[in-house]
């Protein structure tokens, strides 16, 4: 009996050796679009998000970043608004040793079940966009889940609903990129880009986000 048990354990251990990782390929990939130029930086989206998720001071699932520069008279200012980008191939997901992070096949939302988190913070380190937020009180990591409950109910996330300028929206990222998705965040004649200045290389994870970039914030042609 003991020998049999030992053999089973050896088989199980061998089966767990050198496992690979295969990214999830979703049926549809949802993503955000943000107009860097028309955003007034009111941070209503940040507050709506904190309110919805009951976040304490500190962690912010969404951030509005102020970018200013130039010399008089040629000065500029614009905002970059970013949360979790629900990447096509997220870096956070393969780092998680407990399976707390997962990606939905239905819509590509990258969610985290913080009740499974052991606080190793690898996801926080690996994410190129600073999305996972560490909560020092619970010693766990939390992050934007694109208000998955609202999405399932047929509505949009709180940050989008809280945007008074309508410069933030969510939708199928491929349609946002090719311009076929009707959204007030992209004005007539405007086109969206994958990356803005100082943002990490989108080739790392293929983030599901698009921006209407300010002329001073463009990195693509």
């Amino acid at each position: 009996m003991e020998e049999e048990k030992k053999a089973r354990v050896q088989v199980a251990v061998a089966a767990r050796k050198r496992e690979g990782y295969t990214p999830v390929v979703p049926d549809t990939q949802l993503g955000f679009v943000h107009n860097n130029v028309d955003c007034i930086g009111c941070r209503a989206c940040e507050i709506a998000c904190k309110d919805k998720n009951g976040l304490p001071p500190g962690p912010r699932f969404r951030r509005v970043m102020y970018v200013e520069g130039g010399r008089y008279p040629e000065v500029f200012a614009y905002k970059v608004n970013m949360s979790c980008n629900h990447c096509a191939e997220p870096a956070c997901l393969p780092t998680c040793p407990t399976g707390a992070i997962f990606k939905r096949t239905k819509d590509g939302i990258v969610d985290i079940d913080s009740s499974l988190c052991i606080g190793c913070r690898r996801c926080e380190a690996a994410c190129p966009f600073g999305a996972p937020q560490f909560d020092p009180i619970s010693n766990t990591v939390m992050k934007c889940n694109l208000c998955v409950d609202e999405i399932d109910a047929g509505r949009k996330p709180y940050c989008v609903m809280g945007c008074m300028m309508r410069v933030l929206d969510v939708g199928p990222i491929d349609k946002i990129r090719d311009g076929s998705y009707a959204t007030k965040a992209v004005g007539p004649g405007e086109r969206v880009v994958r990356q803005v200045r100082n943002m990490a290389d989108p080739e790392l994870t293929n983030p599901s986000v698009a921006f209407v970039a300010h002329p001073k914030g463009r990195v693509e042609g």
Partner: protein
Amino acid sequence: MTSNHPKSDQPAKAIHPVAYFLGFFLVFGLVQLAFPAKKADQPVKAPAQAAATAESAQAARPAPTPVSPTAQLLLEAARAVPPTPPKPDPQPLVAKAPAPAPVPAPAAQPAPAPEAAKAPPAPAFPKAVLSASGEPDYGKALWNPLHFKPAIDTATNDQCLACHQEVLEPSVRAASPAGVKSADTLAWYQTLDTYIGAQDSFHRRHLSTPMAERLMNLQCNFCHQGSNPREEAPVPPTATNAGYTLRKQVNPETTCLACHGQFPWQNMEGLPGPWHEARESFESADAPNGCLSCHNPEGGFRTERHKVSYLKAEAIEQAATENADTCYGCHGGRAWYRISFPYPRHPWPGMPEDTPDWAKGRPTSSDPRYALPKN
């Protein structure tokens, strides 16, 4: 006019106002004599008596003076950080990080005896991050030049750990809030032979675990290169790239990707597929590491490798002969990102003159920042 007061018909005796003041001061003086106020210059009590007095005073004391959350965080960190010891060795230090000292008395609490109160407090933080009153100042710490270029390029781990010692303390939960035990979990990349030990934080995995100490020589500023700790505009504003990474203090493209990128098997002639599928045909009991079947002095491919200051090249080469997963661990075995790191293409003997498309534009030597001193 009539009055019901029994003495109202008597002539009123006027009391001079000065008499009131004299009476008041007389009563106040008597009270002071009867209940003298305790003063700081009273005789020093015996230690036991003083301690008892301090305890009773502390028990009766209301809540301590409120401090801001950021100051509270710094104070808590100060309690856990011992004074920086004199640096005996300029070598990188992770293994030599000062051992945790006994937790000193909270700075916000008064000393138990007057003599202790007169002693200068132990300096837990560098002076540069203290306010005029000697308390840790979060704003000063945040904007300390050490966090930015060019000072951060020459910052030592000692300097960083003076305030950030907690990154080397074990911090992983024993179990998740739902009860998943850390000891029972294993990620896919943790099934490699080279991954040993309990679940740990990424800082400790890169700095203080046995594998990190044996094979790596990572410094804090290898990853933390002065990227913007804020999410707002550079000060002063600039039209150029200030080296900031939006919302992130580290640029993974130049740091993490070096060891957490994909294994580019498509670029390697003779490899039929990903390494985890093809490796068996290259490995045997005599040659456990299939990578070395081509990447050896006889095979010729890429013999100049790992000779940078943040790695221990000789130790890596030695480990590669012992363990099949030493190479794969950092070359695809724990890939977080969907691309590969563009390693510099050091020329090797017999290297083809034509550069393949995938290698065009790559440097032919390592980043000067990580160059080893030439003997």
